[in-house]
């Protein structure tokens, strides 16, 4: 029987090879490492730093498997998590503040595998320990801000256009818009046109009139509202990323979940206090007149002697840490900032940040810049972090305020509503600044709605148990199939084994995070993948009983079983698909695993076994089949 085409043999061989290669990285356990990266103003990582770290570790009798410079960072690897922890403490103490020291699981996959894109599956927190937070973003806050800002803008616009109005008030109910009350129908129609022309994101409609009060209802378009909610999340994500990077966790997972939630997973971290502090931090911005340049003689002098002019504050520049004097007068605060985005300046070709202020801010900014062209203006970043302290035996939350200057530039020409900061060092600096500006001004408040700490030992426990369950489940089914279906059972066993391999390969390639529910999904897939082979074997047996020749029985067995297998798997696939639509991470992981498992098993149980069966029975004359 050679009705099994040659290209299919080739396909089966290729897929098997693919499975083995791409599943292979999972066999290499990652190394426990400590990663050191230099902060912006610290000297770069080089050999001397490596020697320093090595010496510090040796002096404290901590055995590192390797300490090596890899590109822009330094990696020290350790044999177990206890040594890793004390190693990190020693390195942190030896290097001081200029460097970020973080735990890392360093991939141990050989370079040739990595070169072809093969990598091991990332492990979920339940398999490696760590902390996770689920946060609810209060998007209403962003909408409130925007509605207030539009009310301001409309007032300014009407004044500019000399349209007399009685009042412009924001409805107390959110998303109900702004009521503009005018004195005549003519005024109302001119006002409606003016607003609609100026602000394309607003819908303008006539309201009910009472006496000589002519009402205009202005609401933000639903698309714009949706965009606002979306951007509140995106901004919060960005801000969180920035803040958590400062924490020095390597590869933190910060993702949007559903419409209004953000999930943060920090692998390897066991103490959530520091992370929570950063998440809860409130940041605001202040535009203030600068006094001199950062690091100039006057600022240096003030920093050295501590004698600061009475109308000024002494701050440090973020990054360079240079002292800078800033006036106490506040021009505009972050609340008046509507948007900030980074880009490239067309004229100079340097990175820039575009800033948009609301009407009130624009007026103040216009007044100030008109009078102060050529003078410096500083952006002060005020971060407020709550710390829990024990006072008189009671726990109180004490705000700790840190103020740094994130930008200090000269005013080139007067500006008000929209302006740009140019001449920034790099596109990254520009996007960081934009993020900071927005982060300070727009990030909607967040609440922690779910929180968990999973011990590192629990993670290792779960890995061991999960591995044992998969192996044992596999072994038992392999044995049962071989006993019950003899040679056909052995062929099914090969298929089942490769199903596991290919399933792992696909999951690794896509980068599915492996969790305990995922492991359960793998085990379940093993149990159900054999079903297709049971169907085929039972069919072949039936055909033999009905008097078919062995070759005909094989052919009919595969043909007749196919439609059943297809129907059964499609319905099963529908169920798996529903699982993946569930927002929750754990169930999603299970659903994805199940779905990939159904697809791979469809191939291995039908095509792969068919190839092997054809190969074994080939053109030989057969009297019986071992099924």
């Amino acid at each position, binding site marked *: 029987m050679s009705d099994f085409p040659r290209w299919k043999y080739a396909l089966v061989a290729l897929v098997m090879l693919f499975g083995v290669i791409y599943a292979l990285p999972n066999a290499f356990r990652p190394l426990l490492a400590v990663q050191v990266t230099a902060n912006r103003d610290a000297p770069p990582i080089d050999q001397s730093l490596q020697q320093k770290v090595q010496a510090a570790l040796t002096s404290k009798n901590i055995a590192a498997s390797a300490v090596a410079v890899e590109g822009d960072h330094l990696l020290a690897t350790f044999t177990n998590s206890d040594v890793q922890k004390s190693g990190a403490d020693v390195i942190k103490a030896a290097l001081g503040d200029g460097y970020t020291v973080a735990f890392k699981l360093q991939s141990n996959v050989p370079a040739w595998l990595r070169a072809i894109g093969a990598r091991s599956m990332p492990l979920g927190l339940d398999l490696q320990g760590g902390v996770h937070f689920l946060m609810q973003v209060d998007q209403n806050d962003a909408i409130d801000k925007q509605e207030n800002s539009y009310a301001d803008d409309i007032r300014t616009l009407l004044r500019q256009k000399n349209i007399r109005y009685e009042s412009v008030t924001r409805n107390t109910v959110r998303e109900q818009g702004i009521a503009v009350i005018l004195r005549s129908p003519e005024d109302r129609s001119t006002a409606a046109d003016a607003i609609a022309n100026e602000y394309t994101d607003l819908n303008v409609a006539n309201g009910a009139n009472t006496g000589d009060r002519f009402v205009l209802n202005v609401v933000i378009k639903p698309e714009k509202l949706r965009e606002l909610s979306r951007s509140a999340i995106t901004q919060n994500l960005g801000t969180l990323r920035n803040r958590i990077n400062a924490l020095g966790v390597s590869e933190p997972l910060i993702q949007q979940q559903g419409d209004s939630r953000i999930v943060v997973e920090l692998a390897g971290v066991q103490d959530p206090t520091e992370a929570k502090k950063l998440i809860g931090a409130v940041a605001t911005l202040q535009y203030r007149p600068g006094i001199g340049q950062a690091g100039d003689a006057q600022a240096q002098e003030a920093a050295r002697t501590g004698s600061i002019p009475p109308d000024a504050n002494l701050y440090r520049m973020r990054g360079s840490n240079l002292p800078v004097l800033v006036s106490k007068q506040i021009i505009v605060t972050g609340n008046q900032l509507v948007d900030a985005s980074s880009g490239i300046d067309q004229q100079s070709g340097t990175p820039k940040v575009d800033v948009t202020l609301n009407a009130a801010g624009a007026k103040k900014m216009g007044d100030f810049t008109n009078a102060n062209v050529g003078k410096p203006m500083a952006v002060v970043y005020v971060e407020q972090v709550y710390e829990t302290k024990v006072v008189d035996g009671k*726990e109180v939350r004490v705000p700790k305020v840190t103020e740094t200057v994130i930008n200090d530039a000269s005013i080139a020409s007067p500006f008000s509503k929209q302006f740009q900061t140019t001449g920034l060092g790099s596109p990254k600096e520009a996007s960081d600044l934009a993020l900071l500006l927005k982060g300070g001004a727009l990030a909607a408040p967040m609440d922690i709605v779910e929180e968990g700490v999973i011990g590192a030992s629990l993670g290792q426990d779960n890995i061991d148990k999960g591995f044992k369950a998969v192996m044992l489940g596999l072994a038992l089914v392999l044995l049962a199939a071989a006993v019950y279906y003899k040679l056909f059972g052995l062929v099914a066993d090969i298929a089942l084994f490769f199903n596991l391999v290919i399933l792992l390969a696909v999951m690794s390639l896509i980068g599915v995070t492996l969790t305990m529910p995922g492991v359960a999904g793998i085990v379940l897939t093993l149990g159900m993948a054999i079903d297709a082979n049971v169907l085929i074997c039972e069919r072949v047996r039936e055909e033999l009983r009905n008097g078919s020749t062995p070759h005909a029985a094989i052919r009919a067995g595969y043909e007749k079983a196919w439609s059943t297998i297809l129907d059964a798997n499609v319905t*099963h696939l529908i169920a798996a698909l529903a699982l993946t639509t569930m927002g929750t991470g754990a169930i999603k992981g299970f659903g994805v695993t199940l779905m990939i498992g159904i697809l791979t098993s469809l191939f291995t149980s039908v095509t792969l076994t068919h190839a092997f069966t054809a190969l074994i029975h080939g053109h030989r004359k057969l009297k019986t089949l071992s099924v």
Partner: protein
Amino acid sequence: MEIFNHDSNIPFLGMRKYSIAIALFLMIASIVMLVVKPLNYALDFTGGVSMVMDYDQSVEISDVRAALEKGGFDHALVQSLGGTREVSIRMQPKDDQKAVDANGKVNLDLIASDVLKTLQVSRPDAKLKSRELVTAEVGAELKSDGTVAAVFVILGIMAYLWIRFERRFAIAAVATEIHDVLVTLGILALTQREFDMTVLASVLAVIGYSINDKVVVFDRIRELFRLARKAEPEEILNRSINNTLSRTIITSLFTAITMGALYFFGGSAVHGFAVTMLIGIVVGTLSSIFVASPILLWLGVSKKDLMPVTKENSELARRP
């Protein structure tokens, strides 16, 4: 090797009055059970605080309970996590007044350290292995998400069977599916096993599993109807069940074996999943044999409903 006599012709359809009566009874009993003794929802659904404690030496659950009561945690739920050294403790944040601030924000770390201190009074070898806080809001959402997913699965399957088979098959399959889910949930309520997120995933997987069984029988029914010259529905349905009986039971056994391995070796994190799946396999297998086909018969399936074979179908069927 063969366990089943391939010539068996057990009159499954002949007992349909009894089997359907039993199925109906089980469904009603399950609904009553779910009302009287609601599911033992875990933290994932109810919200609250959960901790896993690890002891160096073995510990009695009753001792842990006593220690907690002494420390003022009267409403804490203590459960063993398999083995004698690991216990899970669940409670509502309000049991530790200090840890809830004026805005209702909960300080998980404070609760955990309070509980740990309480336990260490009598057992200094107690260690905190993990801790978790879920707000009630997130829990409620999970419940509704789960229900939506279950409805989506059932409707999706119904639509597929309607297209690939025929209306009556779709209705029979879905009716049996609802039976399977209800009875599985009923047994979970009866045994008061903890219903957490993995159990929910397992219940949804049970739907996927048991539909497999039904589809295999239905496929055979369709095939036999098309082949048979004189098609007596009851006889054809009965023959289909008997022909596929060996496959139905062998597949269930294989799947049950893997779930057994998961139960015994997978650890406490997947216990609930494996047990639910095992219950679902038993219920699903029995309903495939005893319940689905009688419903199909009552709905009045006949040869002519399945006859005009569309071209696509025959082509699909011919592929290997």
